[in-house]
């Protein structure tokens, strides 16, 4: 089964990468963009979708600083 895991900085944690992107946008003429957050996307195939949350907790995300969402099936 295909799955996608979206990982992003937890709410309230300063994301300097997002800030840098946000600050660059007006120079390119894109005004009015705010609250930019940069995360990462992990695509994978697995035989055991039930183990995905544990896999995320233990490796793909650091739960202290990151939130994650798992998409499986057609959505992935």
């Amino acid at each position, binding site marked *: 089964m295909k799955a996608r895991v979206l990982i992003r900085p937890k709410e309230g944690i*300063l994301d300097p*990468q997002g800030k*840098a992107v946000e600050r660059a946008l007006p120079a390119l003429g894109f005004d009015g963009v705010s609250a930019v957050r940069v995360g990462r996307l992990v695509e994978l195939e697995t035989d055991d979708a039930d183990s995905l949350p544990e896999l995320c907790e233990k*490796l*793909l995300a*650091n739960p*202290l*600083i990151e939130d994650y969402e798992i998409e499986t099936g057609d959505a992935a």
Partner: protein
Amino acid sequence: MTRFGVIQFPGSCDERDALHACGMVGEARMVWHEDTDLDGVDAVIVPGGFSYGDYLRAGAIARFSPAMGAVAEFAAAGGPVLGICNGFQVLCEAGLLPGALLPNEGLRFVCRQVELVVDDAATPFMAECEQGDRLSIPVKHMTGRYFAPDEQLDELESAGQVVLRYAPGHNPNGSVRDIAGVCNAAGNVMGLMPHPEHAVDPLTGSADGLRLFASLAVSPAPRPEPVGS
């Protein structure tokens, strides 16, 4: 004489300097990341660098190496473990230290000499220092912004687990509460972002870093029993 073991991962780059610093105050040998043998080792150094390319997150892959399994057992038995820079990141990822390291606030790699203040000298790593001492030690990192939730920070401070802070005006990365180094609740595992192994000779600007290694040499924690015995 204290016998140091310095862990070497693919991508480590400060293990030679760490070995040199340890050798100035005791005996030292390298421990390859696939080895699990810490026999005869009194203190472990997890050095700086970019273990396993720092893929995913700094330190995230290294924590699963065979050597780190042995280090976790060594630490659980009370053995002293010092993580420097990437080693600090690895120990946080492994859950041996509280908190996490995030990308620097300024998004730039910082490489400079900084002033540190000893906040708590009760750990074996600080035996040669006193509370309030100032140390001049270099930093060089991209992912050094220490973070933990506020409640946890309060707990760490009241338990004396904040060992080192950046002196006022010296915080190079946006670390919360100017924290540069922390230890675990038992006091036998410590991590810091600055590089004491690069500050062991006045010729290179400062020998303040040697005091951390000398501390372990004068007051090694009780040597853990061999695992499985």
